[in-house]
């Protein structure tokens, strides 16, 4: 029995527990998850849905891995780890491990803006981060009383927070230090298209503007933000969403190699200590620290295979990042090397600011390595599949930008335009030529045609077409006594 201790009960830690449980129902691994927060693990992806009022906080708790050999302890803050004695220290208690997993996640990076914090370090009343479930709760409370809000940070979460606030009736402005929104995922043209989409929803955007001071009222509460261009944005609610930094203090203090995150190999193992693993936003693999859920879950699957011995040689080889904005009325997908330019790869772009549409493909060696879709996501499923599976892209790149529909029958009900080999009745395999031949052999009505060819006698869906064909044939038949015009658009096929 291996004692595995996981530090962190966020999306990575909780997923790892689920994955271990799924692979090891018998309990060869004894897993203990230590979470600092009092509440159970929650699905952070849905935080924007909470702010938008679609679900309540209680709804987004993640399913708890429950088994005798999986213990989840919330409200347990780990303060130190002793690698020599293989214990972690939590509230004066020592928890021994055979294998330790760090899933400590990250914290909001709070910009060093004067006025944001009190001397004691606390945030100014009216300012809050948007990261945790507690943040979400605070934001909900604050949004009820707020008259105007400003969001510092025009990344994914900042935009989602802004969208949620505006949906709750709070006017919002987004202040983005970078020259355009979502600068980690979008190139400038795309960022500008997105800003226009936000404007359509009533969200103001100030890009390329840095907050230089948080303005506070006599009561100490936030009343606005002063920008570096001298402008002031009035607001009684300030939401901070200016990036995150991995929580690596424990690892650093324990002497583990830490760059931006805890440096791990392909089995998510610390390069310093083979008994310590790390995953999720606190881990750095192959030079990359991921800030999305999907990579953390992919890592959890690999690590669970390694820890339970079910896939002892499983390897994590890196993830394609697919960023999807979850905000109603905003359709944004950015994936892979979305920022790459023409000098680095084959780039195909469609830029239609008036329709709030922007599409970009980045192709290298006939493989899709990055893409952006704004406004219209019809091909997003195809693109993510191509990116994830490394399938070759089609010669016709346009089909990746615009959803190609299977060629349906043209909206042309003139029977004369159909070729003779065109199938009229699928159920019974009857072609236009067969109906025509039937007419020439003496059939004079749809019923006659049905009796001779069985057209219309399956699902009946072709009845109108056959009626039309019969009328056309009648109209074109010089021997017909029908009063219809004697000459059809084209001659009757002989």
């Amino acid at each position, binding site marked *: 029995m291996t004692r595995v201790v996981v530090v962190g009960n966020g999306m990575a830690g909780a997923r790892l527990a689920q994955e271990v449980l799924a692979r090891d129902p018998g309990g060869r691994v004894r897993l203990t998850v230590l979470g600092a927060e009092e509440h159970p693990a929650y*699905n952070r*992806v*849905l935080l924007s*849905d909470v702010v938008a009022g*679609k*679900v309540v906080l209680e*709804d*987004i*708790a*993640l*399913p708890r891995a429950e088994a005798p050999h999986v213990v989840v302890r919330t409200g347990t803050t780990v303060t130190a780890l002793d690698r020599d004695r293989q214990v972690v220290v939590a509230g004066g208690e020592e928890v021994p491990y055979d294998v330790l997993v760090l899933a400590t996640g990250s914290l909001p990076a709070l910009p060093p803006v004067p006025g944001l914090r009190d001397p004691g370090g606390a945030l100014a009343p009216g300012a809050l981060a948007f990261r945790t479930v507690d943040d979400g709760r605070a934001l909900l409370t604050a949004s009820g009383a707020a008259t105007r809000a400003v969001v510092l940070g025009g990344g994914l979460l900042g935009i989602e927070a802004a969208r949620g606030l505006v949906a709750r009736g709070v006017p919002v402005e987004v202040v983005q230090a970078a020259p355009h929104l979502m600068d980690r995922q979008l190139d400038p043209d795309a960022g500008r298209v997105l800003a226009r989409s936000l404007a359509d929803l009533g969200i103001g955007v100030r890009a390329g503007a840095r907050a230089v001071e948080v303005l506070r009222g006599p009561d100490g509460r936030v009343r606005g933000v002063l920008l570096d261009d001298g402008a002031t944005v009035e607001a009684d609610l300030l939401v901070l969403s200016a990036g995150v930094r991995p929580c690596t203090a424990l690892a650093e203090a324990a002497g583990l190699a830490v760059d931006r995150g805890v440096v791990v190999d392909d089995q998510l193992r610390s390069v310093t200590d083979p008994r310590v693993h790390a995953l999720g936003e606190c881990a750095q693999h192959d030079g990359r620290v991921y800030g999305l*859920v*999907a990579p953390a879950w992919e890592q959890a699957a690999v690590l669970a295979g390694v820890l339970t011995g079910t896939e002892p040689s499983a390897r994590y080889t890196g993830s394609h990042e*697919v960023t*999807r904005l*979850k905000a109603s009325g905003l*359709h944004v997908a950015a994936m892979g090397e979305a920022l790459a330019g023409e000098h680095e790869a084959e780039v195909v772009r469609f830029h239609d600011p008036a329709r709030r549409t922007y599409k970009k493909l980045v192709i290298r060696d006939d493989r899709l390595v990055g893409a952006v879709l704004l406004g219209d*996501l*019809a*091909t*997003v*499923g*195809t693109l*993510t*599949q191509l990116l*994830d*599976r490394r*399938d*070759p892209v*089609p*010669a*016709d790149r346009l*089909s990746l930008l615009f959803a*190609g*529909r*299977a*060629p*349906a029958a043209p909206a042309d009900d003139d029977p004369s335009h159909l070729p003779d080999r065109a199938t009229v009745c*699928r*159920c*019974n*395999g009857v072609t236009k030529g067969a109906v025509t031949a039937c007419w020439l052999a003496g059939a004079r009505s749809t019923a006659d045609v049905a009796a001779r060819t*069985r057209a219309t*006698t*399956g*699902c*009946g*869906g072709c009845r109108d077409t056959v009626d039309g064909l019969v009328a056309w044939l009648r109209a074109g038949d010089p021997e017909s006594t029908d009063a219809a015009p004697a000459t059809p658009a084209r001659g009757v096929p002989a």
Partner: protein
Amino acid sequence: MSAPVPTHCPYCALQCGMHLVPLPGGGAEVAARDFPTNRGGLCRKGWTSAALLTSPERLTTPLVREGGDRRRPLVPASWDEALERVVAGIRRAQAHKGPDGVAVFGGGGLTNEKAYQLGKFARVALGTSQVDYNGRFCMSSAAAAGTRAFGVDRGLPFPLEDLAAAEAVLLVGSNAADTMPPFLQHLAAQRERGTLVVVDPRATPTAQAAALHLQPVPGTDLALALGMLHVAVVDGLVDAAYVAERTTGWDEVRRLVLGGYWPERVERLTGVPAPDLRRAVHLLAGARTAMVLTARGAEQHSKGTDTVSAFVDLALALGLPGRPGSGYGCLTGQGNGQGGREHGQKADQLPGYRRLDDPAARAHVAAVWGVEPASLPGPGRSAYELLDALGTPEGPSVLLVHASNVVVSAPDARRVEQRLDALDLLVVTDLVLSETARRADVVLPTTQWAEEDGTMTNLEGRVLRRRRALDPPPGVRSELEVLAELAARLGAHRFSADPRRVFDELRRASAGGPADYAGITWERVEAGDGVFWPCPDEDHPGTPRLFLDRFATPDGRARFVPVHHRPVAEDRDAEHPLYLTTGRVLGHYQSGAQTRRVPELAAADPEAFVELHPDLALRLDVQEGEEVRVVGRRGAAVGRARVTPTVRPDTVFMPFHWGGAGRANLLTNPALDPVSRMPEFKVCAVRLERVGAHVPAHVPVQGAGA
């Protein structure tokens, strides 16, 4: 000309009504008949079905191996000689291996009477537990999921006519436009209204008729369903009152979908854009009445049961099952797929949809059969496991096959051939010399549908009369006669060859079971448009609609089942970079043993083909109509290329109607669903090669080194 005989089409589970008009010179002509399921319509399979009655390929005499030697040809024999060989082989196997040395493999095309009798024959005359049937390959996943949610499995718990009352329909993995064309009449309202949603990896004719077509990566329907459930929760579309009153288990499922299946994640798993997913759910939830229907596309997976459960969960969350004009249903495939799974030819079941491991069920059925309950064997191997065990030291050494062509229709066909060839005795009862019959030691010729009386139970759970319209050719016997004669020679009696007496016995055996036929008589079936089970007594009107008041669970509530997505059993990789998915074409039925012998149908689709996307064709330099080889991990199959944008670029499609080198099932994966034991027919990994460009290994290449 004789009077038209009202009966039903011999093929699919829609069981379209038709008239047969016997012709003076033999054979019959098909004429239209207005019946609720097809309203007079027939597809080309139905219209041409009588052609097989007079086919020159029809078997009219038993065949045995010359000198009893498998390597020598099949030659005509008398019934007495053929049956004696069968009995001797059975006795030998029983002496060596005990009762389980003999196995029986049935089919979903058998009438209720025959399916019932086959199960009884196995358990009573042979005493073997080794009996299963090809329905395991058909709708077993939906049956398992339906049972665990509703407490009973009836494909459609409502008549087809109710479809017209559904404002929206979600059709998952069904290409009904090709597999049961007259069914499409019932979707006319949704097509007109723009409320038909189809889920299919291919843009089939059915999908093209939809207002919204979701085209997931093969093997990801389960994730798609969970994503739809997630949307229903987050967008406030769950019918909370219904969930509270009529279901159990919602909290866990709700938590599960919120925790892992948000649309953007599901989009990445399935390839279905999140906005389309949302639209589909809103389309369903925005309708006052709606139906969720699944078919083989959702079910024929190693996670087929869970996939259906996820769609049932969706239907329950939206408050559909058990409400007029709404519900969940499975579109059963085979002609008697429904009745075939109710009366005891399944490894774990007894008549009346009773469980073989239920002591009360055993006691009831044993009393009807006049045997001791303890004498009934327990549950045996499931279909593929049974085939896989044939001729092994632990497995049966004799197999009797009825109404099934496993060499074509079972997965990993080469393995199945090897197992059949390892048997001491293979007995096949069929109309024609099917691919499976060709490998047999004894072939017994049997009657066709137009030559026999009996009942079938269609996809609605409606019991129908199949009627004898003409005499069978001399030399041919009905399966009931064959079983009665074999049983008698084995020393077991009380096996009637009269379908009506067998049906009356079936009624008693099913009485009190979930599929209760006790009150159904042939007269009642004939007097109306069939009778829906359950029908516990002759005064009972039958049950067209189930679940209106309660579900068939102990507490009367439907059960939500928590399920998770998982990957396909065999994913694609560098060596096999494509998915293969399989299915049917309009003109053929199942293994094609019948339809390939109907000239008009054979002419329309004469040989196996492979659908591939134009991008793939361009990349591999494959031309339309060229022969291509599909190579997988278990074998290779050959077919003509059909280049079409209706298939995904990462997927090729092959229909499974042909034998020989064109057999799709040479490729398919026998990975089984843990609950239903359904093989993963719908997805495996393959690559595509040009046949023309390939140099066969046995051709020496000039100038090549040693």
